[in-house]
């Protein structure tokens, strides 16, 4: 029963519809391997359903947790908050600093795991040229791109591109925009698409 409720909360969180209670429930259980596995599974399923680029199933939480542990400022803050709580009540004194830290770590984990997807989307939006070409290039296998994570995404994908075309970059940068514009403007207009060629041409300006 409890497990089922948890799964529902997890699902709600993924759909960005979790309320405060559900969020707490998930965060509380976020140390359990089953929950983490379920979260990853949901993400993969969601990625597949949205036809997006492969989802990287890398869990950074351990390293982030370690980094947070190593952070002196945060542990100091945690202990002071613990001290503050101690003065208020005696019941929660032991669990609170620990829970606070786990909550921070867990929320970061969730943010990172979720963020991969959102960031990916942004990167695709902003850098359609590079990302798209990478997807289509035979050299870039899906396995390679799937280990590229979060903020490394844009750089990681553009780097090999830059290597491949370093000599050609200048030529491409100078020619491609002009070619694209000319193509958009020279395309003929037929009855089915009155505004489309114009919108295409306009969208290429200032890129």
């Amino acid at each position, binding site marked *: 029963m409890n497990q089922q409720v948890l799964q529902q909360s997890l699902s709600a969180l993924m759909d960005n519809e979790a309320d405060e209670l559900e969020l707490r429930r998930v965060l509380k259980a976020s140390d359990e391997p089953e929950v983490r596995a379920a979260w990853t599974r949901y993400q993969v399923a969601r990625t597949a359903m949205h036809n997006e680029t492969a989802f990287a199933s890398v869990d950074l939480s351990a390293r982030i947790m370690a980094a947070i542990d190593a952070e002196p400022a945060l542990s100091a803050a945690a202990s002071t908050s613990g001290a503050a709580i101690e003065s208020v009540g005696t019941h929660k004194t032991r669990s609170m600093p620990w829970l606070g830290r786990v909550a921070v770590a867990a929320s970061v984990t969730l943010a990172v795991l979720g963020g991969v997807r959102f960031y990916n989307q942004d990167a695709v939006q902003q850098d359609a040229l590079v990302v798209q*070409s990478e997807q289509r290039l035979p050299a870039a296998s899906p396995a390679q791109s799937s280990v590229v994570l979060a903020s490394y995404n844009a750089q990681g994908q553009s780097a090999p591109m830059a290597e491949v075309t370093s000599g050609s970059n200048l030529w491409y940068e100078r020619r491609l925009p002009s070619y694209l514009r000319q193509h958009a403007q020279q395309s003929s207009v037929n009855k089915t698409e*009155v505004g489309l060629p114009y919108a295409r041409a306009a969208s290429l300006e*200032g890129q």
Partner: protein
Amino acid sequence: MRLTARCSVFFLWAALGSSAYAAQSANQWLQRLHVAQDTQGYQGAFVYERKGAFSTHQIWRQINAEKQVVERFLQLNGPAHEVMRIDGHVTCMSGAIANALSLADVWPVQSFDVQQLQKWYEIRELGESRVAGRNTVALLFAPRDQHRYPLELHLDEVTAIPLKTLLLNEHGELLERFQFVQFNADRDNNLRVSTTPSIAPSADCQTVSAISSMSDIELDVDWTVSWVPPGFTLINSHYRPSEDGVNNVLSQVYSDGLAHFSIFFERVDDYDVESGRRQLGPTAVVSRRVVNDTQQVMVTVLGEIPIGTAERVALSMQFGSGDGDD
């Protein structure tokens, strides 16, 4: 038993009848569209979306006293790109869009030949839909070969004006979206012409004569491609200096009536460029460096066609019978 037989005959008849009806109905819609585009005035706002771009635009369209179609486009977000078109000819353009291109060539009007289109696309009616608060009919242009993309067209039930156009790839994924969010059709055009103020461009819209247009120079090269996908015909060819004036560029535009691709040929003796492929939203770009004894030419095929097809066109580039001339 007899009932079953009768039922199956009925369903067979219904299935055959409905498919024939669907094809006929799609044709009727296309005929209506054909007429509507010359006679229907409207005003509306639409969105344009592809990977890496999302923009909003306003369109005004009127039929003037001389029965000419007057159109004005204005981008609503970001830079206020503007274009005026009268009777299919661009009369003014905002400076940002206008470039060295000769404006006489911008968006040439192509006749809409349903018969020709049906050779390369199967046109089906998908059903009813709703766009911009209006009832629409969805038509699918399904390609008959792998050299073009499917297109989904949603026509307004009242006016037969396309309110939504979706370009899909071979996997049915969305490549490009054009969709009205608000649409007002003129009821009676003759009436509207007299009552509504005529469409006027803004001060930023440069008239065509003010923009330097570039004329062709004499063709002194023999670059050509030996293969284009069936159904694509040459609609435009120019040989002009490039924008930076370094080299001359031969550009050709091909179309099958719906899809377009352009081929650009340019000498690249001075550059160290390599062949490459890119996909920019709906547009495939394939560049290939072709070398013969005397020259190195970069051929770039660019268009809303599958990248494999673009590649095949680029691979078929060859020097004509004469072997270069310099």
